[in-house]
């Protein structure tokens, strides 16, 4: 498949994932009981309803990123090295490792969100959600900046 189409699909699934995870993380860490304005309504969602969608979206986004990776390795990374942009390269290295760390947490994340009323694992759920949200935000921003530096087809 054309890498440009793949990178667009990767970005679109990442946008959906970041929206769902941000809703969930804010609802867990900064919930709003009587929502009045937009930000409060954003935080007033029931967080458990996002869990399965987040697992599926994470897997789709990860798979699309893995599919794109050879193109990045052959056509983008070499150019970043020639442009002497070590921070951009290092950010991507972190992105690939952080993405795998998110993958490692996914079974536990799914399991502990199956019973959201179980308060004995509330803290585990909250930290899993926060770390996953951090990973997705980091990876999204790094991917976005790298695409701006050297987008596919450039």
């Amino acid at each position, binding site marked *: 498949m054309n890498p440009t189409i793949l990178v667009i699909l990767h970005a679109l699934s990442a946008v959906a994932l970041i929206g769902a995870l941000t809703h969930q993380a804010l609802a867990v860490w900064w919930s709003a009981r009587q929502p009045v304005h937009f930000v409060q309504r954003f935080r007033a969602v029931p967080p458990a309803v996002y869990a399965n969608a987040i697992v599926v979206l994470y897997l789709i986004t990860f798979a699309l990123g893995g599919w794109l990776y050879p193109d990045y390795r052959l056509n983008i990374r070499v150019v970043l090295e020639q442009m002497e942009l*070590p921070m951009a390269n*290092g950010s991507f290295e972190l992105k690939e*490792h952080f993405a795998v760390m998110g993958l*490692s*947490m996914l079974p536990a994340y799914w*399991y502990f969100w199956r019973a959201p009323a179980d308060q004995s694992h509330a803290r*585990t759920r909250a930290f899993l959600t926060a770390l996953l949200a951090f990973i997705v935000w980091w990876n999204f921003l790094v991917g976005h900046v790298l695409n701006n530096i050297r987008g596919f087809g450039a």
Partner: protein
Amino acid sequence: MNSQRNLSAFCVVFGVVFSLAYLLAVWKNYALFTYHPAIGAFAWGAEKAREGGPAMYWYGWIATAGIAGAGAGLIAAILPARYTLRLWSGLAWLAPLCAMVVFGYILRNYFLH
């Protein structure tokens, strides 16, 4: 109840072992296989770059860690309850978090120059 406990043990142990095995695989380059994207070829183990293109180990590292994580998780799931009952569920996020900090340290030179 037992199946719930088994599933919980699997998920937590999988997360811990997968993240630490991945860190070790990256650090020591224990890739189960290597992909050569320029020629579209796979090779067992960590193989050096072939002429004309780079070698990619990322998929191989994930495979190594996946096997270690799944194996350890399955063992934890079939162990008697007395071994896993007191397993702290917070390890599922603490181990990956620690691994991420180590990755930041390993890759620090990209950001310090």
